[in-house]
Every structure is written in structure tokens, then in C-alpha cells.
């Protein structure tokens, strides 16, 4: 994946939030990295420190939490969390599944302050 452009996108989003939500420093940012998102966490970590330089995120602690793949089965109706290599319902082994979580890179929350 192109982690630098993802990091830049995160920085832009947070900079926009800083004006509407009235903060000028982020001390911590929590991201959810979906297991199925294609995002490499080490690359994202490295790229984030570059993208954050000189921005409200420059001093932020980056916390990455992995969100597992969750699927819903059209056959048995249940949700389960298969390993990526299995990619079928864990309850009944059907491949008639729909992804309900684990595809995305998300900003969960920010710890912010306003420094005069």
C-alpha cells in the first residue's frame, strides 16, 4: 500500500479538525488498521513521522490497533473472525460471506490540547 499518502491524508483530516474542534496540538492519535486493509503498520509508522512534521500532529504519539477481519455468513447467518488464509465462515465453513469489518484504516480518536 502507499502508506505515505495515507499518512498525509490522516494529517490533512486532523488539521481540518483542529480548526473546527479548536485544538492546536495532538498528544495522541489512535488508528484502527483493518487486517484486510492492505496497510503495512511498520511503513505507516515510519511515514507518519515524516508526514506529521511541522503540523499539529508533530508531537503526537501514534497508536495502531489491529481490527480483525469479521465476516457475516449468508448460509448460517452468524458473524465470525476467520484467519485471512481461511476466508470462509468459521461456524459452517461456507464461502458465502460478506465482510463486515476489518477492511478499513480508521482514525478512532485524538487526545488534543490547546496551547496558547
Amino acid at each position, binding site marked *: 500500500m502507499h502508506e505515505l499518502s495515507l499518512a498525509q491524508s490522516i494529517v490533512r483530516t486532523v488539521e481540518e*479538525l483542529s480548526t473546527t474542534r479548536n485544538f492546536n496540538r495532538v498528544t495522541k492519535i489512535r488508528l484502527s488498521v483493518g487486517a484486510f486493509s492492505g496497510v503495512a503498520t511498520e511503513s505507516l509508522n515510519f511515514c507518519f513521522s515524516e508526514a506529521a512534521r511541522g503540523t499539529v500532529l*508533530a508531537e503526537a504519539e501514534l*497508536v495502531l490497533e489491529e481490527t480483525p477481519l469479521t465476516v457475516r455468513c449468508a448460509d448460517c447467518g452468524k458473524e465470525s473472525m476467520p484467519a485471512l488464509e481461511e476466508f470462509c465462515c468459521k461456524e459452517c465453513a461456507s464461502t458465502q460471506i460478506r465482510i463486515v469489518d476489518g477492511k478499513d484504516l480508521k482514525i478512532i480518536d485524538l*487526545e*488534543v490540547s490547546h496551547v496558547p
Partner: protein
Amino acid sequence: MCRDCGCQTANKIAHQHLLRFQPHGPTRTLTVEERVLAKNDAIARQNREWFGRHDLRVLNLISSPGSGKTLLLEKTVERLQDRTRLTILTGDQERDYDAQRLQARGAKVKQLNTLSACHLDAAMIEKELGGFVSPASGLLIIENIGNLVCPAAFDLGEHCKIALLSTTEGEDKPTKYPLLFHEAALILITKTDLMPHLDWSLEKCEAHIRKVNPKAPILKISAKTGAGMDSWLDYLGK
């Protein structure tokens, strides 16, 4: 526990203070809960609405580089009854070689160059709507950048993704790149004319596809010989 500030994040994947710790005063937590691709997806939804209002069917062709997307489109244009009903947007990082090839066949085509980006995004498509992409078209085919990872994640507003996989690629690609093959509404196996010369198993490939996508039709095509092209043209409704 972090010895600099006492925070309890030692059990997370990454815990990093980017600069030497500086006191930061009182803090508050802001819930964001926003997907990083949310902006792209919002534009994609607007694109989809525009396509719906103008009755335009939109297909997003995604594959590795060299799977045969452009040749397939060249042969498609040649065989169309009415070329004015098809518009093509073709994406590459640099150059307009693909657009030139398609123009030579009489296609209405525009080259989109992303320079450094490895995928087309919804904003690039939005720029063309109402201009190069006219409502009179009927069918828009977007030939995405050759890449099996990122294009699968970037919604362009299309009605469906079509995945191409050639016989010169590993049979196991669908399970290696499950997001694309799971989401594809149609899967094209291309370059079937080469099968007699390769140690490549159609059965194995189809089995890998079915592991991640039990339902999507699989068409076997040789753009070069024409094998399977009728079924592709039927799918396009031409």
C-alpha cells in the same frame, strides 16, 4: 508503561514518541471514528449518483500490470456495433500509450495520468463527469492502474469491479489478493491462447477464485484469438 509520560500503551502494536517528550497541558479526547478513505468514498457516492441520474453503466477493470486490459479493450472497441456508446478512461502513472492504442481503434478514450499514485481515485473520475464523460455514452469503462492491491480499496463510483487474471500469472493470485477477487462482480481469465504452452492449471485457478468468491461468473478469454469474446460482449450488453 512509558517511562517518559507514564502512558499505558506497551501492549499496542506501535508506541512511539516522535520527538523528545514535551509537557502539553490539559488534554481532552475527541472521538473521530472516521475512515481514512471517507472523503474518497463520499465523492464516489456522488459519482454513483451522477451515473444513476444519467443512466450510465460504469465498470472498473482492475488487474496486475500486463494482464491484457488494454488489448481486451482494443478488441472490444473493434467489435462494438456502436462505438459512440462507449467511453473509456484509462489510467497509468505516466504516458498515454494506452490511450493512443485505443484511439487508433476508434475509441472515445482519455488518458488519466496519476504521476506518483498507484491507483485512480474518485476525485479523478469526478473531474471528467459532464465534460469528457457525457451522459449520452451509455457505458463507461475505467481501465485502472495495473495493481492488485490499492485499486480494490478505492471506490470510484462504479457499478462493479471486474478483475482480470492472465494465464501467465500464478493460479493462486486470487487467494493472495483476496479483497479484489472477493469484491469483483465478474472475473476474466485472459490470454487463454497461451495455455497449451504453459504449466498452468485452469482448474486450480478457478478453485482459488472460488475460495474467495463463490458466485462471480468467470469468463475465459483470448483477446488475441477471439475465444470467449462473445460472452464478454454479451456481458457488456452490446
